[in-house]
């Protein structure tokens, strides 16, 4: 009996160690859920004879917590812009210099010198999008390109608004509406923001992430939204129009990066280079429904995607603003305003 148990324990231990030892020809990708095109992975596997495993997370913070513990065994992660900045600062990413790889010429030059990875020594673009709002044009017939529709809504939209339950997205939109800078620690300005949000909240019906469902069920007529969600909601409710407010709006980008001390670092570099081919980028876009930042990918993308006003920004729209992570004192102030708004 004792021997049996001992053998079992040993066998168990063996499987664990086998899990961490990297066999040649493997790659472990840690990406957002439902965000990796299986066909694209298959293509990579066939091209290089590498076996890819995929694991998923639901927020940048979850990913950071797991990676920081160490020993995660992952090679590739796909963090958002601000999270790349944090991870570089914490020394969690390997400086693999994708800017010297053969396919780097395909990266759109406007995505090279970015605040989170200037010159692209650590990461390459994966998908990018914007956070705005979408509104039913049959309910509200005026100009949609202003944040006033969320913060000082006309009568027909009062009580018909959903905001994202997201501290940064709501506060940044409010700061733009008041024309105050982001990462703001000016207490007088924040007080004004606080009062404006409390007043505006009386006109909001819900604060929730489930944007598509709220819009298609006609529970609300306006919802703060990511561009991909807005496009999918429009399928069911064709009257929806995605706004590009003149006061400005938030852009975001997820980026492919390699973890420091990745077990399969050479394979990870191969993967990075592969991800910069127009075909691979287009496959990702077709699956995830966002733009990719790789030049020449459009011809390989679904026309339904390249013709969507949510994905292809009109020339008249202001440039999206990428907001860096704010200092802790600012975050503390934001958290107070947010808690106060939601109490």
């Amino acid at each position, binding site marked *: 009996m004792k021997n049996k148990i001992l053998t079992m324990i040993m066998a168990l231990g063996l499987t664990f160690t086998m899990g961490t030892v990297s066999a040649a020809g493997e790659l472990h990708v840690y990406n957002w859920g439902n965000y990796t095109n299986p066909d694209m992975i298959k293509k990579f596997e066939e091209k290089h004879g590498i076996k890819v495993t995929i694991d998923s997370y639901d927020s940048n913070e979850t990913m950071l917590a797991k990676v920081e513990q160490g020993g995660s065994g992952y090679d590739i992660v796909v963090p958002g812009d601000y999270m790349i900045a944090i991870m570089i600062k914490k020394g969690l990413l390997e400086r693999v210099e994708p800017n010297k790889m053969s396919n780097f010429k395909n990266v759109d030059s406007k995505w090279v010198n970015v605040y989170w990875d200037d010159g692209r020594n650590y990461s390459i673009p994966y998908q990018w999008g914007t956070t705005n709002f979408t509104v039913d044009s049959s309910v509200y017939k005026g100009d949609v390109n202003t944040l006033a529709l969320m913060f000082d809504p006309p009568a027909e939209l009062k009580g018909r608004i959903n905001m994202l339950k997201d501290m*940064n997205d709501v506060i940044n939109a409010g700061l733009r509406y008041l024309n105050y800078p982001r990462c703001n620690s000016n207490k007088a300005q924040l007080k004004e923001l606080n009062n404006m949000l409390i007043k505006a909240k009386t006109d909001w019906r819900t604060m929730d992430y489930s944007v598509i469902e709220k819009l298609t069920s*006609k529970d609300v007529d306006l919802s703060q939204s990511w561009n991909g969600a807005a496009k999918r909601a429009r399928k069911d409710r064709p009257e929806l129009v995605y706004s590009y407010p003149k006061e400005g709006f938030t852009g975001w980008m997820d980026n492919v990066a390699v973890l420091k001390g990745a077990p399969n670092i050479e394979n990870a570099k191969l993967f990075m280079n592969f991800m910069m081919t127009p075909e691979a980028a287009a496959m990702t876009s077709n699956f995830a429904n966002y733009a990719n930042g790789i030049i020449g990918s459009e011809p390989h993308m679904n026309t339904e995607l390249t013709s969507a006003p949510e994905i292809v920004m009109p020339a008249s729209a202001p440039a999206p603003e990428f907001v860096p992570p704010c200092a802790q004192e600012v975050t*503390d102030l*934001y958290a107070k305003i947010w808690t106060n708004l939601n109490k």
Partner: protein
Amino acid sequence: MPAQSTTHTLLSASVVAEEKRQRHKRFSLLAPGILTIFCIGIMPLSIVLIYSVLEPGDYGGVSWVLSFDAYVQLLFEEDIFDETLTFTTSFLQIFLRSIGLGLFTTIACLLIGFPTAYFIATQPVKRRNVWLFLITIPFWTNLLIRTYAMLLILRDQGVVNLSLIKIGLIDKAIPILYTDFAVGLGLVYAYLPFMVLPIYASLEKLDFRLVEASYDLYATRFKVLKRIIIPLAKPGIAAGCILVLIPSLGAFITPAILGGGKSLMIGNLISLQFGQARNWPFGSAIALVLMVIVMLSLLTYLRSSARKGLTHD
């Protein structure tokens, strides 16, 4: 046992050895349980406790500096204007809302659940089982799915509004969803069986000859209820109230879905601290305070019921 050991030394030696073996056996049988409780219960809780007295780290996590700021923050805040430390009501309000919602759910469940349980308990035995079976049917479905079903029923384009419009009672949908009423309704619906079952269990054992006797002694219906039935059903009522109150205190899904997320619950408040607010010590402190509140109310109940058990003997 030691008294006999002097006369039967040999025998007692083997008894002692046997005792020892038994103790070892018992311990090794208990070991997996204790180990599990330690690993997945006490250890994580200790981490939460330790984190709550540290300072928040850069971009999440903690830095290893002792600080009780997290607990001070729960009650006091620096005013955004004049930097004085004032008593803050934000968190208190969030706690009170959760507690208020819990109390409302408990009372509503009691008012509906008690007559239901009484009705079932007074049915013929065969039919009782059918009724009990019907009460447990909702448990076959996941709470999330049942809550979404409520959402479909209550929304502007939902069954209730559409049929009211069809009948002609109203001509425009009345907003039921995303109100406190919807949250209360959802919670009562979710937790009602937890109230009915324990009350039924104690009413089932009730000797109805006592009820007849009190009628014979000219007690009114109300007096019978107050002096005979309720006191005898008390253990069931108390158990039901606890079973409803505690889960509805920490209710997370129902308020989020049916309430529209416009107000934070304790659960949301905690997850905010570990996410965007990047203040893990504060999140840990809130989680511990909630746990202490729940534990204290449970202990109070256990002690009071234990005392009652004593007086009965």
